[in-house]
């Protein structure tokens, strides 16, 4: 099991939720939201690289966060 920690100031909760939904088919993913961090615990199914699954999930959450903040603030990332 791999635990990923997402700081709520840097990652949108909705983006992490979306990432969990996308990668849920590849393993068991638990999500725990606290004030100081959003914790995601990833356990991959047999035949799935657990580290890669956790990293892809984190990338998806970051990309979605950036895209949503870019849309709402009208600037920043390019």
């Amino acid at each position, binding site marked *: 099991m791999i635990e*990923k*920690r997402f*700081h709520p*100031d*840097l*990652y949108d909760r909705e983006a992490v939720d979306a990432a969990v939904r996308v990668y849920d088919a590849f393993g068991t993913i638990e999500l725990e939201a606290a004030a100081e961090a959003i914790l995601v615990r990833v356990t991959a199914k047999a035949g799935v690289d657990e580290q*890669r699954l956790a*990293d*892809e999930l*984190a*990338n998806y959450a*970051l*990309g979605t*966060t*950036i895209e949503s*903040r*870019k849309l709402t*603030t009208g*600037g*920043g*990332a*390019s």
Partner: protein
Amino acid sequence: MSEPIQITFDEGLYPKDAIYGAAYVLIDRCYVHLDRTGENRITVKLQPKPGVSITPEQAIGEFQNEALGQAWRRQILDENRALIEMISSRALGGAAGPPGLDDLLALETSEDTAFDDPLGIAMSWEEKYKKKSNETPPEGSNKEEP
């Protein structure tokens, strides 16, 4: 797969949006993870994806360059924001075209709203240069017809 490498940025020098921008540029080639590790400090962990021909050191270097570029562009934008807004609003105002007849008819023009006209620019030619009734005509210039 190579080991991840991490770097910490001071948010006073690199705004969060600049770090987001740099992360977005590299996200197709690297696994990127952001975290806060102190007051105004953001730690970036980078690891090249499998099959991508970039070393962690190259990824970090590219990330730093991109973050610096993003921060600089942002500063230029902030410094010129007023000018950009003024030009944009003028361009949009010009694109709207001249006022139509309905717009002109809808204008409220009364004694209260009329502008001052000390030079008489808005007066008609006849009104401005009409002959005064008690004015004496020059000699020989206004002979009555028989």
